């Protein structure tokens, strides 16, 4: 027998040892808000594409602008995480096709004009009149041009909004999933999983707003599909690890019997997915009144999913394999 008894190292680099902890709450907040905004983009545009008419509720009409505020908040968290904050502009002097972070930096820039046009096109006459009144004279012409684009190419903007939402949602997962050095992130499932979670949390946020009954029912049914997709993707992720040799089996053991088992299954799978899904099904079958706890659970579950995966992944280096 030549089993490893003890390993010692003289390295004590901050952020690296005893195990990686370079990314903290800032990245969790960013990943969560990024997914949330991705979901809002997809759902707001898809609702209009499905019904063929602009949203009736005031809250839903303003959601694209709220989404831009939320993604700005997320980018603020991302900026706080940078070790060299004054050099953030370096992201925009370069595009690196193999770097998901580079893709993300450019997606985040493109989100703004698309969101602006999506939002402007959603406004009703009263809201447009208010906005025209508040716009300085020099910018009035630009505003009218934007209104013209927002209305004239409405279908194209809606389809682009769905595409941008999907790109943003998938990228937040791929950002982690393309790092082969972190065993628990090393799964292509993370991209679609974060997208499904983003759509679900986006739906949850919209469900907290005053909506028309028809819009609410559509969102609840879409959210149920997103939750089922999340459950399937989580199962596929664990199955993928379990069937991929020694390294993958170590990874799956972290969630099935290991240190993240209780927190992952209680906060994410049960409270964040299974309970809301059951509530949605029961509410629909028995025509029960909507319970606000449902979207709150989904939002908390989405936050927990990112927090746990970010933390667990950083602790899963090759050097910790038995």
């Amino acid at each position, binding site marked *: *027998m*030549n*089993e*490893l*008894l*003890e*390993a*010692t*190292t*003289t*390295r*004590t*680099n*901050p*952020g*690296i*040892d005893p195990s*990686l902890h*370079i*990314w903290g709450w800032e990245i969790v907040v960013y990943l969560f808000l990024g997914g949330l905004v991705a979901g809002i983009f997809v759902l707001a545009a898809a609702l209009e594409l499905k019904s063929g008419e602009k949203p009736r509720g005031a809250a839903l009409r303003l959601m694209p602008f709220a989404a831009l505020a939320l993604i700005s908040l997320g980018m603020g968290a991302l900026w706080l*995480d*940078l*070790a*060299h*904050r004054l*050099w*953030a502009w*370096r*992201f925009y*002097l*370069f595009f*690196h096709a*193999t*770097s*998901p*972070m*580079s893709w*993300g*930096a450019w997606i985040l820039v493109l989100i703004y004009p698309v969101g602006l046009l999506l939002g402007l096109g959603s406004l009703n006459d009263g809201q447009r009149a208010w906005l025209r009144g508040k716009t300085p004279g020099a910018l009035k012409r630009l505003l009218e041009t934007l209104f013209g684009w927002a209305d004239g190419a409405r279908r194209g903007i809606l389809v682009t909004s769905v595409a941008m939402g999907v790109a943003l949602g998938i990228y937040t997962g791929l*950002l982690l999933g*393309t*790092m*082969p*050095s*972190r065993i628990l992130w090393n799964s292509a499932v993370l991209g679609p999983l974060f997208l499904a979670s983003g759509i679900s949390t986006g739906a949850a946020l919209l469900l907290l707003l005053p909506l028309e009954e028809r819009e609410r029912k559509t969102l609840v049914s879409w959210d149920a599909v997103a939750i089922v997709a999340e459950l399937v993707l989580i199962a596929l992720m664990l199955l993928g690890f379990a069937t991929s040799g020694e*390294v993958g089996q170590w990874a799956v053991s972290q969630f099935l019997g290991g240190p993240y088992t209780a927190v992952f299954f209680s906060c994410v799978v049960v409270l964040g997915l299974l309970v809301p899904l059951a509530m949605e099904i029961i509410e629909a079958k028995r025509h029960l009144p909507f319970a606000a706890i449902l979207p709150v659970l989904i939002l908390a579950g989405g936050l927990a999913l990112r927090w746990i995966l970010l933390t667990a992944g*950083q602790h899963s*280096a*090759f*050097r910790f394999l038995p």
Partner: protein
Amino acid sequence: MSATKSAAKRYAMTVDTRQCVGCKACVLACKAENAVPDGFCRQWIVEEVRGEFPKLSAEIRSERCNHCTDAPCVKNCPTGASHVNEGGVVLVTHHKCSGCKACIAACPYDARFVHPEGYVDKCTFCLHRVQKGLSPACVGVCPTGTLTFGDASDPESAVSTMLRERRSKVNHPESGAGPNVHFLV
């Protein structure tokens, strides 16, 4: 030297685990040569004990960035700060680094760290010395001849000879990164 030969150069290092006594001279030489700040290191010593008492064996390794052939840090860098330089040496251009830490997360060896000035730092194989015909500081100071540095694409180099004549291994080959620091066993 022709441009073609220069482009094909592949710097590598061997660490003789049968010679290393873990004196840390390499660690200190690196810190002094590269002004590595207090509390940080670009290279370090790992000591592993294996077996069952009383039949034990110890392996001491001087470790650093592996200057991988298919470096995940370079692939994941969004600003182009992490790049492959002469002889396959992986470097970080300090003034291009925003400190996003994607390269740190991508590194299979945890060989990188955030310098207190905000950029990511790591071993450079002392390329500034190598370009002057000198050996890396760690190699030059090693009292037991544990470390050998050279061009692995040149079959006559000392490092190629070592790799040809001795059994060797690399750390975490499962990462698929193609490390260029080889441990002689």
